Every structure is written in C-alpha cells, then in structure tokens.
C-alpha cells in the first residue's frame, strides 16, 4: 500500500501516464475533553502545547488517510502536488484539508 505521495509535480524515474484529477481528504476536529483540559492548563504556562499539537497532528493524519483512500478507490497509484490547508471553525474547531493530484505512473524507460 506504499503508494508514492509527493509535494512535487513529477516523480524522478517515473513517467505520469494518466491524470485522475484532484483527490482530497477533509476532516473537522475539535480537541477532546482531556486535550482541552491539558491544553488549557498548558496555555497558561506557555511554551509548546502538546495536547493541541497532538490534536492538529491527528487531524492531519486523518485527512491524509482519507486522501489515500480516495486515490486508491479511483485506481491511482501515486499522488503528486500534495498540499495541506487548514482553517478555523469557531472556538476550538479546526478543518484540515489535504489535496493532491491522483495519477498513474510507470517507470521511465
């Protein structure tokens, strides 16, 4: 299942033979109660707020999982031009969007 995913638009040594269009993974997350509690306490002290970092990492991971699902479902074997985008959704909530172009690649001869 290790499909190549890259932020670049080409993959060295491979040739893109087919474009499937844009694939995306989208997730909206708010901190869980323990994350909100720990994060709130840590925010008072300052420094790195691990609980909120975890929440953002989980949101990105889940958006990435959905992106791969989408690409594999339509028959792609690689994703190029991967980008992440995030926005605020009211207090505490965050929306993470992960998108890229699903392609079919084959080794260059």
């Amino acid at each position, binding site marked *: *299942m*290790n*499909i*190549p995913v890259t932020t670049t638009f080409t993959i060295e040594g*491979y*040739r*893109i*033979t*087919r*474009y*499937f*269009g844009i694939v995306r993974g989208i997730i909206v997350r708010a901190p*869980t*109660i*323990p994350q909100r*509690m720990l994060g709130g306490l840590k925010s008072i002290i300052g420094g790195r707020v691990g609980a909120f970092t*975890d929440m953002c*990492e*989980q949101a*990105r*991971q*889940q958006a*990435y*999982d*959905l992106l*791969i*699902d*989408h690409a*594999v*479902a*339509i028959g792609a*074997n*690689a994703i190029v031009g991967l980008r992440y985008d995030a926005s605020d959704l009211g207090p505490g909530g965050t929306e993470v969007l992960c998108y890229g172009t699903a*392609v079919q*690649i*084959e*080794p260059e001869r």
Partner: protein
Amino acid sequence: MPPADPIPPPESLEAEWLRLLEQSQRPLDEARPTAVLATPSQLSPTVHEDIRWWRPGWEDMRRYVGWRWVFLSPALLLLLCAIPAWRWPSVFNPFVLVGAKLAVFMGAVALTLAGYVVRRAARARREPFCIFCGYNLSGLPDHYRCPECGRPYTWRIIAEYRRDPEWFIERYRALRRLPPLAAPFDAGPVRRRRRDGT
C-alpha cells in the same frame, strides 16, 4: 505499477504478519504521516453497507486497559454514580456535594475515556482476526477467505483495521460519499529539453 516496496520480502508468512503487527502498533507520533497499510476501498466489492464489523469485546478491553484501570476506574465509578443521581435524585445526589458542573464535566471525561478504550482495544488482539466476524485466523495464509463467514481478507487490511476500527469504518462509509470524479485523461508524450536549452 507502483514502485516496489522498499522493505525486502520476508522469509515466512509469520514474519510478514509480525511486521504488519509492529507497524499497526507503532504510536502515531513516531512517524507522521503514519504509513497507510491498506484502505477500505480495497475490500471486496461484494461487501456492502449493511455489513456487521467485528468490534472489541469486554475481554479485549480488559486486556488493553491493563494498568490503565487505575485511571479509568475512578472515571467509571463517577459515571456509575451519575446515573442513579440522575434517575433517583432524592436517594443519592453527588451533585449537591461536588456541584453539577463538575459532575457533568467528569461524566464527559469518563465517556471520552471509555470511547478511547473501545477504539484502542482491538490492538489487544495479537493474532490476525476476521474484521467482520472476529474469527481467529492464525495459521491461515494471506489473501484468503475467512473459514467462518467466507469473506475475503488480506493481512494488510486486518492490520489497518487493528490500528483504529472506528476510524476504518468511518473511512469505509466516507468512500461512499465521494463526489463523482471528472473523466481521467492520458498524459501526452514527454518532451525532454536538451541540455543546450533548445
């Protein structure tokens, strides 16, 4: 064809399963994004929406929780107190003692913790198992059918399911809601620029 897996082929089926097991065990913060071992879109097309998924039972939860019961049991105890207090407030009412806000908050913490345990308990099963009926698939090969329910399985799908069953099911449902995609188009021939710039 996708490029070859960088990991060399294992000598035996057991080694392959153990490698997948180790990957699905790995904490999320070790490597991000975590490698996606399989996707629900690889499930056989005969699998439909109304499927029953295997979910961890009490025994799996107990095995997963282990020493964590130290933290979990006070939260569960509070939840157990909150239910009678809500049903029969005159008989037993901790709200009077601790304040309604705190009790609601602790109840929410207990629910979150319980949900977390349910989601993670599938990892307590070390052997390969059918994600639909929970049948123990030890000793059976990869890419085969469950002898109990007859559904096809691959170890990678089991390992991905093991990572977080609820998330796997959610992804499976999300695939059904994907927007229709524009028609794919073929790439043209590559024109390489010559070194002299012409």
